């Protein structure tokens, strides 16, 4: 009896541990579970079992799993997202007109026959458009906002459903609906250059998020539109900068966006001490500089963190992340792993009025 009893105990214990591991995995990665469910329901759709129910569940889990996985994975790089995830909610004939009007939601039609994943494409695009940088988009031009939405949506597709990227760009980037389409395409191309240099999410979107936080009470302004255009051109120049070229301006100081990029990279300096960088940020930058982006190769992660620590009396470390980027060495381009730390001044402007900036007091 004793050996049999011990086998039972061992079995129960083993099963319990396995069960616990599965439960923990489900609780910590709900978006992965969504994607497994999506595959399961897709299989049921293929064998035509409970077709309508299975198709609805497949669409729901496919969408939620993909978007939520992207958001979770890139949470630190998505400063402009004001939501922590997405949920697909089905409506049917039970919805009453008055309730629909009061809920004030867009209802997207899900087609049963959907060879190009149109439903997925539309839902993700709508989600990004209404959840990303909605404050900043009040002030910038429609082509700027549309280009940002298209670019971020494309990045989600590249990672989660690469097979829809070509179709999406073909259909949505060049719809030729209005005169703004050409501008949207131009901004999109610039974002691509900026993104390859690892500057789109950690610098551009970060600045757009700060812009949205700062400017209050007014609708679109030509000054802001012009400033955002200058910001995009500035980051494009920075992205195309050749390593070692010190002629490229690394400060962007305008009415709403005031930041400096500090490249922590020269081996001769970084081996000796981090103090040249610390001293430069303390004394070499304009006093009203609000954000400092410390950028370097991944091997300089420790020195960059040390610099951040030494500047903690003046700046808050708001984010730090590893990024893949392409550097230009003469005529050659090389992909490297990099590191970005974002420092935010404690004495930054809250918003800009006609009389001048109003500072945050600490």
């Amino acid at each position, binding site marked *: 009896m004793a050996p049999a009893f011990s086998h039972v105990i061992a079995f129960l214990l083993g099963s319990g541990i396995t069960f616990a591991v599965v439960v923990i995995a489900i609780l910590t990665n709900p978006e992965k579970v969504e994607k497994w469910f999506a595959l399961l329901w897709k299989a049921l759709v293929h064998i035509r079992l409970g077709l309508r129910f299975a198709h609805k569940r497949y669409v729901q889990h496919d969408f939620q799993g993909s978007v939520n996985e992207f958001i979770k994975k890139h949470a630190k790089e998505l400063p402009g997202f004001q*939501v*922590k995830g997405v*949920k697909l909610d089905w409506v049917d004939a039970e919805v009453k007109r008055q309730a629909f009007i009061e809920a004030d*939601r867009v209802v997207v039609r899900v*087609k049963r026959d959907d060879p190009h994943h149109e439903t997925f494409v539309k839902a993700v695009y709508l989600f990004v458009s*209404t959840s990303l940088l909605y404050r900043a988009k009040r002030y910038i031009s429609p082509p700027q*906002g549309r280009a940002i939405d298209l670019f971020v949506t494309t990045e989600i597709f590249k990672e989660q459903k690469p097979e829809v990227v070509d179709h999406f760009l073909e259909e949505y980037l060049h719809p030729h609906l209005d005169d703004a389409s050409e501008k949207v395409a131009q901004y999109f191309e610039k974002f691509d250059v900026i993104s390859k240099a690892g500057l789109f999410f950690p610098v551009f979107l970060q600045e757009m998020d700060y812009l949205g936080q700062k400017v209050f009470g007014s609708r679109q302004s030509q000054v802001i539109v012009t400033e955002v255009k200058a910001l995009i051109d500035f980051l494009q120049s920075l992205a195309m900068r050749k390593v070692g070229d010190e002629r490229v*301006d690394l400060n962007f100081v305008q009415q709403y966006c005031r930041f400096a990029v500090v490249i922590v990279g020269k081996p001769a300096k970084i081996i000796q001490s981090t103090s040249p960088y610390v001293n430069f940020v303390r004394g070499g930058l304009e006093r009203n500089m609000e954000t400092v982006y410390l950028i370097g190769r991944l091997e300089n992660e420790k020195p960059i963190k040390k610099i951040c620590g030494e500047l903690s009396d003046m700046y808050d470390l708001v984010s730090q992340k590893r990024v893949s980027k392409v550097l230009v060495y003469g005529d050659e381009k090389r992909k490297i792993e990099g590191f970005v730390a974002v420092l935010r001044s404690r004495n930054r402007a809250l918003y800009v009025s006609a009389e001048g900036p109003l500072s945050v007091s600490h």
Partner: protein
Amino acid sequence: MAAKSIISAVHDDDLVGFLDSLGVLSEVNSGEARCKFCHEVISLDNLVAVFPESGDIKFVCDRPGCLALLAQHRSELRGLDQPQQGEGDVKPRGEVARAKGHGTCI
């Protein structure tokens, strides 16, 4: 970050019942319904989205450009929904010179 964003959807099999419950099925079937953005006649084939506006029901056709305009339209409305935390006047103050030649690369 706030809570999860909700995207509402209606399945093809529920579409007719859904439009009927909103009281717009006859409008769609008779060809009176138009796309909010391009004014194309809306049918059960080309309808891609429905949303309320000013107490009325609006339709969007399946042209990608119209979905882009819908996204932009909703994005603008979302921005207007946000509480106003101050009436900072953003009138132009003239061009602010971009600082040049600081050479932050050290």
